[in-house]
């Protein structure tokens, strides 16, 4: 009896004492400690390439219907929404975008998530002692470039916005807004630093990560938007003069091997092609979502081969963008989403030249693009005529790509001309509203953009 009792009691006490380390649990196999990541070159690269996936899956550079290309197509005179249902992009088409529109939330939220990710890389890499200088520069360069580019899109679209440079949520949760000029300056600074850190080599075998040329191409665009014509032209020429970039034929321009592509985003799955193709292509009429607007179709000059190659008529009066041709999977992915391409450098060089008074170069660059599309050369005209020619050329060359039409009309002060085709167009539509939810969570984002 006694022995049983003592045994039982002691067993009980042993159980109590024996729980040392019981609360220590294993780390799950699909997670890695942050410190480990930045002490390993391979893992650091994996953390960085995740940022490219984020760019692809949402925000401005996504080819989906909530990417800026599709949304601005609806907002401008490029697309006609045929989907009869109340859907977020129909608000863009109808001119009834509100602060609670889901696409507005997505654009904003995904962008700042991308920015957080690159800031996280910057902080991790800068504090790490385990990385080689080459890797470190490459990582910082790519991260800074993405940070600058996303902020650039944000300020061009939303106006005054916060410029986020840290991952510290205590700072960011109350961060205030900067005006557009200041944001542009910081974005350019980030790109300039990236330019100094990166080389002309792409870090992988394809053009799917950022190198110095990508940074220069974006710098060229940003200077153009800032109306710093000489710098815009300088960087445009810089890219044009690199031997690895050549204007590709209209048929090949949007393939993954395109020689005019400067930066592409590779689909996240092997065999998948672009979201952009999915967003635009349809086979029977009426189109289930959108079709090209009659205004855009009419804007093509007779004989423009781009109308043959990049537009597909399903029926008379029902056409879709056909730059990307594959909306199905293929054995190996054949098309990547091109974020920036050489043709734009020609257009920037032409426009900057026009403003700088170099009309020869202006028309030379324009005519290269025109000739490629089977159009005859234009005679050198006045500055005023040149600017109209350039706007027309941009409209045709860059249609349905990343909202070029909106940003072009906006910086040229021509948005009000949309009133001719959009009854409900209002002057304050030059900015999109800030997401309502964000205004509620961070009072320093007040005030809402005028009109909303």
């Amino acid at each position, binding site marked *: *009896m006694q022995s*049983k*009792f003592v045994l*039982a009691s002691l067993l*009980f*006490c042993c*159980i*109590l*004492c024996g*729980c040392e380390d*019981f609360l*220590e*649990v*294993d*780390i*799950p196999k*699909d997670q*890695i400690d*942050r410190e480990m990541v930045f002490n390993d070159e391979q893992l650091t690269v994996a*953390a960085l*390439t*995740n940022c490219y*996936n984020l760019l692809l*899956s949402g925000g401005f550079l996504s080819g989906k219907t909530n990417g800026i290309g599709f949304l601005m197509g609806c907002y401008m005179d490029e697309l006609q*929404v045929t*989907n*009869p249902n*109340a859907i977020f992009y129909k608000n863009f088409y*109808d001119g*009834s975008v509100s602060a*609670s529109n889901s696409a507005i939330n997505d654009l904003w*939220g995904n962008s*700042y*998530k991308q*920015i*957080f*990710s690159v800031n996280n890389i910057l902080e991790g890499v800068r504090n790490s002692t385990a990385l080689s200088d080459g890797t470190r520069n490459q990582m910082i360069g790519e991260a800074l470039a993405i940070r600058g580019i996303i902020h650039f899109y944000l300020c061009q679209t939303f106006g005054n916005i916060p410029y986020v440079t840290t991952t510290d949520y205590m700072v*960011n*949760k*109350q*961060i205030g807004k900067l005006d557009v000029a200041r944001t542009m300056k910081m974005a350019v600074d980030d790109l300039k630093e990236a330019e100094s850190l990166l080389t002309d080599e792409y870090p992988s075998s394809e053009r799917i990560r950022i190198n110095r040329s990508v940074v220069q191409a974006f710098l060229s665009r940003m200077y153009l938007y800032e109306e710093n014509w000489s710098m815009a032209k300088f960087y445009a020429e810089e890219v044009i003069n690199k031997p690895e970039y050549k204007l590709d034929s209209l048929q090949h321009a949007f393939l993954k091997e395109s020689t005019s592509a400067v930066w592409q985003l590779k689909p*996240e*799955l*092997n*065999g998948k092609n672009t979201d952009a193709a999915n967003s635009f*292509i*349809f086979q*029977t009429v*009426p189109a289930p979502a959108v079709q090209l607007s009659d205004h855009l179709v009419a804007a093509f000059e007779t004989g423009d081969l781009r109308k043959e190659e990049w537009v597909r008529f399903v029926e008379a009066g029902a056409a879709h963008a056909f730059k990307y041709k594959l*909306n*199905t*999977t293929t*054995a190996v992915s054949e098309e990547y989403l091109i974020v920036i391409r050489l043709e734009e450098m020609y257009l920037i060089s032409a426009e900057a030249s026009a403003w700088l008074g170099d009309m020869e170069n202006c028309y030379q660059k324009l005519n290269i693009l025109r000739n490629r599309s089977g159009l005859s050369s234009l005679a050198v005209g006045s500055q005023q005529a040149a600017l109209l020619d350039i706007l027309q050329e941009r409209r045709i060359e860059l249609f349905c790509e990343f909202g070029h039409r909106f940003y072009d009309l906006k910086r040229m002060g021509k948005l009000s001309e949309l009133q001719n085709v959009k*009854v*409900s167009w209002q002057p304050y539509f030059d900015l999109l509203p800030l997401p309502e939810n*964000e205004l509620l*969570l*961070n*009072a320093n984002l007040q*005030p809402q953009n005028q009109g909303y």
Partner: protein
Amino acid sequence: MKKITFAALAVPLMWVLLLLLFSSNKLHAQETRVLSGVVKDAGGTPMEGVTVWQKDADNGTQTNETGRYSLQITGGIPVTFEYLGYKTHTVKPAGNVLNVTLQPDDDMLDEVVINAGYYSVKDKERTGSISKITSKEIGQQPVANPLAAMQGRMAGVNITQSSGTPGGGFDIQIRGRNSLRTEGNAPLYIVDGVPYPSQSMGDNALSAAIFAGNVSPLNSINPNNIESIEVLKDADATSIYGSRGSNGVVLITTKKGSSDKTTFSLQSTTSVSTVSKFMDLMSTEEYLKMRRDAFANDGITEYPANAYDVNGTWDQDRYTNWQKKFVGGVSVTQNTKFSIGGGNHLTNYLLSASHRKDGTVYLGDFGYKRTNFLLNVNHKSKNERFTLQSGIQKNTQHNNLMAVSMLNNILLAPNAPDLYDKNGNLNWENNTFENPVAKLNAQYFSENSDLLGQININYSVFNDFKLGISMGVSETNLEEYKTNPHTIYNPAYGLTSANSSIIHSSYAYRNWIVEPKAQWEKMFTKGRLEVLLGATFEERKQNGMSLSASSFTSDDFIMNIANAANQRTTRDTESQYRYTALYGRLNYIYNEKYIINLTGRRDGSSRFGRNNKFGNFGSLGTAWLFGKEKIFEDISWLSLGKLRGSYGISGNDLIGDYQYLNMFGISPYKYDNEITLEPLRHYNPDFSWENNKKLEVAIELELLNRRLTVSTAYYRNRSSNQLVGIPLPASTGFNSVNGNLKATVQNSGWEITLASTNLDKADFRWTTNFNISIPSNKLLEFPDLELSPYTNQYKIGEPITAKMVYHLIGVNKTTGLYEFEDMDGDGEITVKDRTKMVNVGATLFGGILNHVAYKNWELDFLWQFVRQKNYTMDYYGAMSGTTNNGGAYLLDYYSEENLDAKYQKPSAGSNALAAKAYSLFKSSDGVIEDMSFIRLKSVQLAYNVPFKGAGVRCSIYAQGTNLVTFTKYLGGDPETIGSLLPSLKSFSIGFNLEF
């Protein structure tokens, strides 16, 4: 830290044990002799199985079939005679023969024993707040989930069904919302001593469309297998569960074998169900008029090419009630159960098998199946010192549903084309109609199997000292499939099976728990002391794996991932949770009148960072049975009077595993054919337990010879150190960060229950049970609320369930648009005007249950009532004037003829001002309405078929659920609101046979 803690507690315990060792030694020194005799009842019949024992010695026996016993006794110690239902008889024997007559115990009604988890307590001596329902109340309700059986029957427990789809979820709130986090409000479920997961399982990406992420894990338990459900509410009852008892504890006990005789039982129920309440929708004529008005209001005279409903493309005389089409079906449910039980007074068993099949009310051939097996075996040794309880449950569930909810299609234009053409093919009406039925080609399958095993062993080392250990394991495996064949898309996209895809996700949950405990009981001349000490070790492991595959040669192969051109593992996770605790209880009853109950627990959880792993919880409960005081003793109408109160702290660690670590996760997507790593969260290692301080005072009375039982309780729970995902603006990169808020939320309220026996005749008995709860919730303090991201969500002094909204004034008589109150008077409506607080949620609820038995007939009916405000369909619907139909009440819109309209003028979408006013309307108090309801929750009529032969019992019954609902609300069912399937009303018939 950990080591010291437990050693420090264990060492004094060893001393106590040693002390006991000494005191017991003395007993063995006494002389012994043999005592024998016969035990009879008051009628003189010998009683078999009466326990005869010396409480203070290691000594006991039972009477045989002639009532005779013989026991070697130690002199000088009293002998006790015990038999269930009879008064315990204790005597100090003088000679060698002792014949005893046992008196039946009239107080048996009081001897209702309540399971409090780690211990049981007589209802009379209970100090805590515990609600209980038994198999009798659960009865033959044809519900699939135990929570459904509890609806309306317990004070302080508010249960709402979130979807009428079989396999869906329930929301349960025990005394209100304590936590600012939704998932932080789940109670702790314990099934036969084993903790059961409270969170929805599975891959949200697969089932979210149908269940909105709410799948109740309790679905796998058959309510008909349940013996009782106890809900622990106040500090006294819950703090022994420490960190996990903050939101209450739901204890589920399955049925045990009871009788000596082998009993077979067969039960079968068949029910038919339909949606309980439809919305009254607009007719084609009304709808088209609204559309035309909308275009007119927008200044559009020529209808756009894609306005097929009004521009003449679609037949304008056609009318379809899409509600009836998509969710108007009749679902048939069959429930069959077979069980065998039996044993003897030492060993008993129950084996039960049941099967349930549910159809759905949806268009299409879908359904749910469940199979349950249960085996419970109990045994005790001859001397009753050793007892064993064990049980095994095996449950499987199959669910086959559409992958996309069809519910939003009930608002299709009423003149939208037919779903099928003449040949029975999907009709796309020349591609002008996005045929929603195509989406039915995407299906969701789930297969859930779980196994629950538990053993509970107790050994009386001495008569007053018991050691015990309970162990349990549970295992759940869930396999889910969601197919996405290309045929769900409009053929206009020209897709092929190369675009078809499937997601397969499997999920395994394993849990074990070991809980040793020691119990000591000491009688004093006027008092009784009970001491309980125990420990808990628990581990939960979860594994999840998701595969996604796309591009098939044919859709026929879609279930076979190997046939896909692209295959991908999107998720391969595991997580582990460990928990350990030491708990104790000290209960002292003095003079059968004054009771004090002290409980405490020290908890450790792996969910917290190094410095926050441990927490202490405890409570004090007291009760005063004032009815036994002299001055009340002569009052004949008062049978029992009890005043009780408790105060204590329990906690909450429902925050998810590993949240305090700074981690990267492997992203499901690759880039450049290499894996990518994504940051998972903002880093905060310093969060810790949430505290819930609970106070309760209650009075319990039994009046008029127990014909009337009344209890009234007031409670006040203050939850502080709120453990939340603090919302952050998107500019931080994430939507939230885990942390503790200094905020305090108070839940207080009254709970009243009443039970009365209105008639008690030999063949006519009528009883009524009534319960009502009046909860109130308030944010008590929140330092620096104005500077926090919550400033536009909460307000001090207002409920946390309240929404901060614009105040709708009405429709402006000149513009025809909604007008809102300009709160800050700056002439504009901006987010700064979004300051009106409107409470969303129940402010009063309860139920009345009547039971009438007349000869062989029994009738039960339960009315459930809820006073609440909630979001109306307008919150979920679309703007009037777009291509969506809506409730007929929306016709009260502004026009020149109707200046006093409730709704603004319709717009087809291109009126920016109307769109803006509408978006403000959705964030205003205009979409929150009184949705109170009274509902005939359940009616049951049973007839007990009389049989001449003894031992055969048969009853047949008819049952109705949700038959009648009274509400002012016009948008359909007031219980399940929004985008999910409303709760169903059903009729069922069945029988129960026992022999």
